[in-house]
């Protein structure tokens, strides 16, 4: 019977299955071919799919995304890798102005996927640990996904490749090879729908809304809170744009107390948008303020004690959850 695979292996499987299934799918990026990618996500792809479908590019993120856009307009399904997601900033204009607006402007959809390793916890410092989601969540025309489990990682990359619109796929490098989240994946071809959150734990006293690597910390926190007699529900957003407003509304109405947890920095982070949605849709149900546990407003630091202080963790979630529960 099948064995448990890593989050990284799940992404690799999803990519290669879609390349097998659909000849329109191809990949481009820096060091993805011969080398198989900085994190080895596309290891073996060059040998398997050939150099026409696994293209090593010069160092030119805007050029890479631009070329992906052109190929997409021609009916292909490009998947562009950013060696670290931090470098997506160099393609910001191409993504937000060319890819995001073409369908609305004149009806030309630009299905493509831009993926890369995001997030901290690996001593990457300010330029190899970023969480750029909000720059794209604030851009109509894009979709943004951020899987927190191995199963979702595979199902979402496949859904992203099949989607008719441009999708930013954020894979969290801290989860890549984390033994704890290895999973046995379904034999059959499955997708995780974009735009649907998942309730990863049922609870009745309060809701933890999160995504990405923070899911683990929220589940740990929920476990610990349970022992204190606080029943916490954990909603994994999985897709950040479009947000699953119905799922957010449902859990807010159910528990009446919401704590949003994200690794991204605080000001302008997605917790604000979620708080606004809850205000609009479930205000009367609130038994306390919507609170947030996030990284502080600073770049991601390198030094171990600094990064450990900087990133949210179970302890911080528990502490905030207690305050909220006591409310």
């Amino acid at each position, binding site marked *: 019977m099948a064995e448990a695979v890593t989050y990284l292996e799940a992404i690799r499987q999803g990519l290669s299955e879609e390349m097998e299934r659909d000849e329109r799918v191809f990949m481009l990026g820096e060091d993805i071919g011969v080398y198989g990618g900085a994190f080895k996500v596309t290891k073996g792809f060059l040998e398997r799919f050939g150099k026409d479908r696994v293209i090593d*590019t010069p160092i030119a993120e805007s050029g890479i995304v631009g070329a992906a856009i*052109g190929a997409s307009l021609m009916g292909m399904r490009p998947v562009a890798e950013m060696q670290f997601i931090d470098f997506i900033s160099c393609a910001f204009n191409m993504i937000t*102005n060319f890819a995001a607006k073409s369908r609305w*402007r004149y009806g030309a959809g630009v299905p493509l996927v831009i993926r890369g390793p995001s997030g901290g916890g690996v001593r990457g410092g300010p330029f190899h640990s970023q969480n750029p989601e909000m720059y794209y969540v604030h851009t109509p025309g894009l979709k943004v996904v951020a899987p927190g489990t191995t199963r979702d990682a595979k199902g979402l990359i496949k859904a992203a490749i*099949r*989607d008719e619109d441009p999708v930013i796929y954020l894979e969290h490098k801290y989860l890549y090879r984390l033994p704890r989240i290895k999973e046995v994946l379904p034999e059959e071809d499955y997708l995780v729908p974009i735009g649907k959150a998942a309730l990863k734990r049922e609870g009745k006293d309060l809701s933890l809304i999160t995504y990405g690597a923070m899911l683990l910390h929220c589940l740990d926190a929920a476990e610990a809170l349970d022992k204190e007699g606080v029943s916490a529900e954990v909603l994994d957003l999985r897709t950040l744009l479009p947000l699953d407003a119905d799922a957010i509304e449902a859990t807010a109405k159910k528990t009446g107390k919401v704590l949003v947890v994200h690794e991204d920095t605080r000001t302008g982070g997605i917790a604000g948008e979620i708080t606004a949605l809850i205000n609009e849709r479930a205000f009367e149900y609130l038994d306390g303020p919507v609170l947030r546990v996030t990284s502080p407003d600073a770049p991601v630091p390198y030094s171990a004690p600094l990064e450990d202080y900087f990133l949210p963790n179970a302890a911080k979630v528990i502490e905030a959850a207690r305050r909220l529960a006591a409310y």
Partner: protein
Amino acid sequence: MPKTARARKNRQERTSGHGRSLDRARLLDLYYYLMLNRLVEERLSALYRQGKIQGGLYSSKGQEGISVGSAYALAPQDVLAPMIRNLGSMLVRGVRPVELFLQYMQKEGSPCKGRDTSLHFGGIDRGFVPPISHLGTLIPVMAGVALAGRMQGKDLVALTYIGDGATSTGDFHEGLGIASVNRLPLVVLIENNRWAYSTPVAAQSCLVDLADKARAYGVPQGVADGNDVLAVYEATSRAVNLARAGKGPVLLECKTMRMRGHSEHDDAWYVPEEEHRFWEKRDPIQIYEKHLLKTSVATSSDLKKIEQRCLSEIEKDLSAAESAPFPRPESCVEDVYAPASDDSEDEPAQPRRLARRS
């Protein structure tokens, strides 16, 4: 190395056109498009002055030979990405004046439903990719079009334009870099009209010939007289053939002059009078008229007839556009995403094969 060698070979070659390869019908065709380009734009600026058009309106007066001559050199399967001064290229590719009037008058039936401005419309199905305002972006995008065409076994060439000023953008460099190492069938036509808004080309680059930028990529280049439609046609044909033969990308500079302001609101007071006077004598339409008469391809009455035809087409199309309704206000929030039905969940998992041309 061969590429640099080839670059050198092409380097100095200045093309002057003779149009030997074109029969009478096609020579008159060129004249029709030049004239239609000129007259549609004149009508558009009249509408602008009447307040029937708001926002940016960018004239290609004096540059029509570049748009028409280059677009005319393409094969049907080729893909063209016009910039805002390439209205003529779009006409050659089948865009009708009515679409342009609808577009500029922001009407319901306009190609982009009144959402976007100027020449920002089109689509691969019609053989072109419209620009966004951000200059330089089309170079990587058209590199991707060329790449996809090759994957799909179409033997297409991607052609796009860039201004002298926009060759300073990072995207110009990144796009040509990717195109060069992949030998993509891409032709980048530098429309050097001596000015970028109020900035003269000398403040934009230290080069005399912007075509020399090809030397940074080891790719072929050429320089042509942009006010000679036949020279442009022939230089583009050569560039397209090189690109189709896998020797691309090719950088082709066409020298010309922007004869009006950057956009309608700008009277270009900063352009020296002598410069303007010098180029007035080199109007591409007059030059081509003389050529057609001298080579007795046409009589002046033939040409008058073509001009009349353009004018009546414009009248017809304009009144159609004027009477057209404005778009439904709420339509501006539609089409941000594909309709849910197209979405992944519903797409069958059947294998997809590339449709290759046999």
